């Protein structure tokens, strides 16, 4: 038998040699020299001595013989491993083409363990408890890695091969914040393991993972070091100062600073400008603004939503704005894992706008067309102090609580003078009115909310409860003067009144919602909410008639109402989340009961409405980047109190609103479709969306225009209102040119029903146009973008089918910037609007607005930037807007910011240092 095997072995060896003649063979055999058990399948590996690189491996045969080949002669490490035997590790040297290392005697583990136990007992110097070192107590140099720190810790040694011993034992596991850390990757060590990034070093005996899982201690321990990192323990400040002065009295100044120390953040900013810089931009508001008004949430479907309340201003390019704003922010975090957070803000804002507006509106009536003109000058000033606070407390890993409180006090002043009049197309005057309005109001409000959320260990189950309350108070004092001339009636009248207004409201709401997984992929959501709203609105008008005394109460135009609204809403939603298809349907049912009390005659009106909000949505996910969805949303809307019974007003005697107590709810059905397909690797994306909605019993308007040109409006229910839209977008990249191209188009159709002088009017509006955009982007040198967007508009009405309003417009824009040598940068922004003239007399409505700047950065860190910029260089920014609506066509011309040149200096400063004695951890270094 033995002979047969030897023969076989020799044969195999021969075959092997013939296959690869260039290699050097190492052969030998492994034997159990004590119990003579078989050593079949014993693994034999050969490594380089200098770098432990695996060169070859094999398995021993039945007899324990093995044969390996390496590609070069020299010294190697041999590892022989078998689960029953202790590992055998030795150095071997090749001699000639075939090296026979002879028989390796394996030692049973049983024997070995007895020996090890003995040596172990001697080695143990510490038991059980964790030894912890505070890293900062041991001085290291700024850029030392963690091994320099470990060397300094008493009881920890590092040998020349980098092996770490703690309390005499080899450290087998190194962890960072509880995660295993493999220090084999030098880049990782440099990136994460700066000594200065370490807060604490903990040395302990870790139980085996099995023991940790079962809770049963199997006695197996692994010497472990855990490095607890610092929480980016930075200290310092950064900020920005910018000052700019320009021609024609334009100015823009900003200063902001953020100082941080550990988790505390204190920021302050101030901005004053008359160039439409009305607050912090998105980037700056992240750095210097408060967190008290911003929220970030992850929804159940995994989408992240973030929103910021009360930011930005509604300045719409009309008028000349001036802004002064300043704010202070404080934020801090406490407790373990930042369980308690607090943010507080104070903001002051004052803005004023001087506006001039010249509006021409052409109305289409069944038998006539007439033109309404209005010229107005207005001044508005708003001033407010706001404070906001928010705090979040994580009670435990599943429960958190959030409190928000904000308050505001302010004053608003508005003054306007306008001349309004109507003429027929021939230019004969129908009526005219001179109106002067002055108003000063004081506003106060307080808003508070508390939210409690609880998750459960069962995935998908969650509960949340919230309560909120809001109090507002507004008092106003104003004066109204109008002189009206009704030429057709040959009548004039004058109103000269002082007006006092009082409005206060208190609302209270609460909401409960609960989600339960019915099956693995099926979730049920239920919610209930109740809201109470108490509101008092009073207007007192006093006639200024010298003969009767200065302040005579005018009963007709005074009112004092109390509204109470109680809304109860209950809803439910069922969600099916399958891998390829998400489907959900459900709805809300809400009961709203109104009570309106007239404090003048103590009469009471009650309304009660049940509103229904059904919804359904289906989404097919073809791939991660490609999906199609179809949705339906239905909603009822109850008429507002103002539509049912408006408060009598005489601010604008040419437009009067009357109520309709017979109004019914309207029901809108919304359908939407969306498909997108994104090819990431080829930079190609396609997005298509369509929506269609129609309204049953739509609340629309009936208008009656009398021969004096006075219009009365009343809300009525109509059928047949609908709208639809289509949107298409295709983007791709032309790779060799680094050019991104977007092609798209949109179309919108709108049908609106109304009544005009007792006749039914159907107005159809259609707008469509293609769009082409392209941009070139080379990140350091040159950025260029261009877009062109022609648009066609067509409006028809059923009462005057002969009058069709249609026109083209064309928008083009170009943006470019280039980095020049010597730290110069050049940039421009061009917007070019071309509008088709409506008729031969129509004036030039085209705008060509070009802005350009040149800037240069100074200092090594480019912290100082000087910039010379021109806004609307060709002084072409005419304030103009045009809109088509239902049965009128409106054009408006207004004042706005025109050409100016500005020179500005911006200095960005920063000072950042770590907490003493070592610097902060640096994630960016690699």
């Amino acid at each position, binding site marked *: 038998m033995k002979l047969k095997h030897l023969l076989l072995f020799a044969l195999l060896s021969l075959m092997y040699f013939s296959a690869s003649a260039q290699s050097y063979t190492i052969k030998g055999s492994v034997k159990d020299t004590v119990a003579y058990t078989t050593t079949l399948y014993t*693994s034999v590996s050969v490594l380089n001595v200098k770098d432990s690189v695996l060169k070859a491996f094999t398995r021993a045969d039945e007899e324990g013989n093995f044969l390996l080949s390496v590609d070069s002669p020299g010294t190697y490490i041999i590892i022989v491993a078998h689960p029953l035997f202790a590992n055998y590790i030795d150095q071997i040297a090749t001699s000639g083409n075939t090296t026979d290392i002879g028989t390796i005697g394996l030692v049973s583990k049983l024997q070995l363990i007895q020996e090890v136990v003995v040596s172990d007992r001697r080695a143990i110097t510490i038991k059980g408890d964790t030894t912890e070192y505070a890293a900062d107590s041991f001085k290291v140099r700024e850029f030392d890695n963690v091994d320099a720190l470990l060397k300094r810790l008493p009881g920890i040694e590092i040998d020349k091969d980098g092996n770490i011993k703690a309390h005499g034992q080899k450290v087998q596991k190194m962890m960072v914040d509880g995660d295993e850390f*493999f220090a084999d990757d030098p880049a990782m060590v440099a990136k994460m393991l700066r000594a200065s990034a370490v807060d604490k070093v903990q040395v302990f005996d870790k139980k085996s993972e099995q023991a940790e899982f079962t809770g049963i201690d199997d006695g197996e321990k692994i010497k472990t070091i855990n490095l607890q990192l610092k929480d980016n323990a930075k200290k310092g400040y950064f900020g920005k100062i910018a000052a700019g002065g320009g021609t024609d009295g334009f100015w823009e100044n900003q200063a902001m600073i953020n100082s941080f120390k550990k988790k505390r953040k204190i920021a302050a900013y101030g901005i004053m400008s008359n160039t439409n810089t009305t607050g912090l931009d998105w980037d700056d508001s992240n750095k210097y603004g408060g967190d008290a008004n911003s929220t970030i949430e992850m929804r159940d479907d995994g989408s992240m939503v973030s929103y910021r309340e009360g930011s930005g201003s509604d300045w719409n390019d009309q008028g000349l704005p001036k802004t002064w704003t300043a704010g202070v922010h404080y934020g801090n975090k406490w407790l373990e894992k930042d369980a308690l957070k607090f943010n507080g803000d104070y903001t002051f804002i004052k803005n004023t706008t001087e506006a001039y507006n010249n509006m021409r509106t052409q109305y289409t009536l069944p038998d006539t067309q007439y033109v309404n003109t209005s010229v107005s000058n207005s001044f508005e000033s708003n001033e407010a102090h706001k404070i906001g606070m928010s705090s979040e407390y994580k009670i435990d890993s599943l429960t958190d609580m959030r409190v928000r409180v904000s308050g505001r006090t302010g004053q608003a002043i508005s003054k306007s003078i306008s001349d309004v009049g109507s003429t027929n197309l021939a230019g004969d005057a129908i009526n005219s009115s001179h109106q002067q309005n002055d108003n000063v109001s004081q506003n106060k409000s307080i808003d508070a909310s508390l939210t409690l959320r609880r998750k459960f260990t069962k995935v998908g189950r969650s509960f949340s409860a919230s309560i909120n309350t809001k109090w507002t108070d507004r008092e106003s004092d104003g004066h109204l003067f109008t002189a009206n001339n009704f030429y057709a009636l040959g009548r004039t009248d004058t109103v000269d009144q002082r007006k006092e207004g009082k409005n206060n409201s208190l609302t209270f709401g609460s909401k409960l919602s609960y989600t339960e997984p019915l099956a693995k992929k099926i979730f049920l959501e239920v919610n209930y909410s109740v809201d109470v709203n108490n509101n008092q609105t009073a207007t007192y008008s006093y006639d200024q008639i010298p003969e009767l005394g200065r302040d005579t109460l005018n009963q007709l135009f005074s009112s004092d109402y109390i509204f109470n609204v109680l809304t109860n809403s209950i809803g439910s939603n069922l969600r099916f989340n399958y891998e390829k298809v998400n489907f959900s349907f459900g709805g809300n049912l809400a009961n709203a009961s109104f009570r309106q009390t007239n404090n003048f005659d103590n009469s009471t009106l009650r309304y009660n409405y049940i509103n229904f909000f059904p919804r359904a949505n289906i989404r097919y996910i073809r791939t991660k980047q490609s999906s199609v969805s179809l949705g339906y949303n239905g909603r009822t809307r109850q008429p507002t109190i103002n539509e049912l019974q408006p408060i009598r007003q005489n601010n604008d005697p040419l437009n009067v609103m009357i109520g309709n107590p017979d109004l019914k709810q309207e029901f809108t059905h919304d359908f939407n479709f969306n498909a997108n397909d994104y090819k990431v690797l080829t930079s190609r994306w396609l997005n298509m969306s369509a929506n269609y909605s129609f309204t049953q019993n739509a609340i629309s308007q009936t208008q009656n225009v009398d021969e004096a040109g006075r219009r009365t409006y009343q809300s009525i229910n109509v059928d047949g209102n609908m709208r639809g839209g289509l949107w298409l977008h295709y983007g791709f990249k032309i790779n060799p040119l680094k050019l991104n191209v977007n092609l798209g188009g949109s179309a919108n159709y709108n049908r609106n029903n109304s009544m005009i002088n007792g006749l039914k009017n159907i107005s159809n509006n259609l707008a469509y146009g293609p769009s082409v955009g392209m941009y070139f982007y080379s990140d350091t040198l040159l950025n260029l973008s261009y877009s062109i967007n022609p648009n066609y508009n067509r409006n028809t009405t059923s009462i005057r089918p002969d009058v069709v309003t249609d026109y083209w417009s064309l928008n083009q824009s170009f943006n470019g910037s280039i980095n020049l040598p010597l730290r110069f940068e050049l940039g421009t922004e061009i917007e070019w609007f071309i509008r088709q003239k409506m008729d031969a007399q129509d004036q030039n409505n085209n705008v060509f607005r070009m802005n350009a700047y040149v800037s240069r950065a100074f200092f090594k860190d480019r912290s100082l930037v000087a910039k010379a910029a021109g806004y609307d260089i060709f002084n072409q920014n005419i304030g103009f807007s045009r809109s088509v609506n239902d049965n009128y066509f409106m054009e408006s011309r207004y004042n706005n910011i025109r050409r100016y040149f500005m020179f500005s200096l911006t200095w960005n400063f920063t000072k950042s240092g770590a907490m003493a004695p070592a610097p902060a951890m640096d994630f960016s270094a690699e």
Partner: protein
Amino acid sequence: MKNIIASIIFISLSIPCLAQFTGNGKIYYERQTNLKMSMKYEWEDEGDDNSWRAAMLEKMPKYQTSYFIMSFNENKSDYVFDKDEETKMPMWGGKGPAKENHAIADYSSKTLLVEKEIYETKFLVADSFKKYTWKIQDEVREIAGYPCRKATTTVCDSVVVVAFYTDQIMVSGGPESFNGLPGMILGLAVPRLYTTWYATKVDLVPFDETQIKEPKKGKKVTSKELEANIGEKLSSWGKYGTSTLWWAAL
């Protein structure tokens, strides 16, 4: 005849010892990615200065855990994605490309067929075994009941991969495309991707290789061609692109 009887006795005696070694079975792997650390890396860590990102990180779970099963015999192995742990994941922060690879290794022809979904494209990477330069280390640890020796190698020029292999499984395979060690890889760590693969259980069951469902659909490429296909694009995406490239190379 005597010889035959002797050898039968000999073989039957050695069975308990032979059971220390196995050539077929089923390995259950758990893959864990420290999401917060990898996000921080991919976002080039703007840290505290970007409060928006900091707030997002706070809302995310620390780990993303997925499960894989590898069935193997001495001829072939079949590594397939099993399931994800049910955690609330941000939509976009969820699974990136090449995170549900299906790898079929043929140990006799030393070839590998891996199905990798990278964004919109399903790639079928067919290639011979990559020649890893494994460095064998001293450290031995127990994974799923098997003593495993540590070995390290690098992929993509500099990305270190740490593997723990056991001599007791006589198949030189491992999760993803890793192989070439004197035994089966039961533990794998790619520190720079903040990801580890650990076997949680090894079932010693026979494996019928004809049951392998070979992926048929997809763009057939070699690993070199795959890199050429996606490399140019991803290398212009900063650190997110780099780490995606690393994932695709596993």
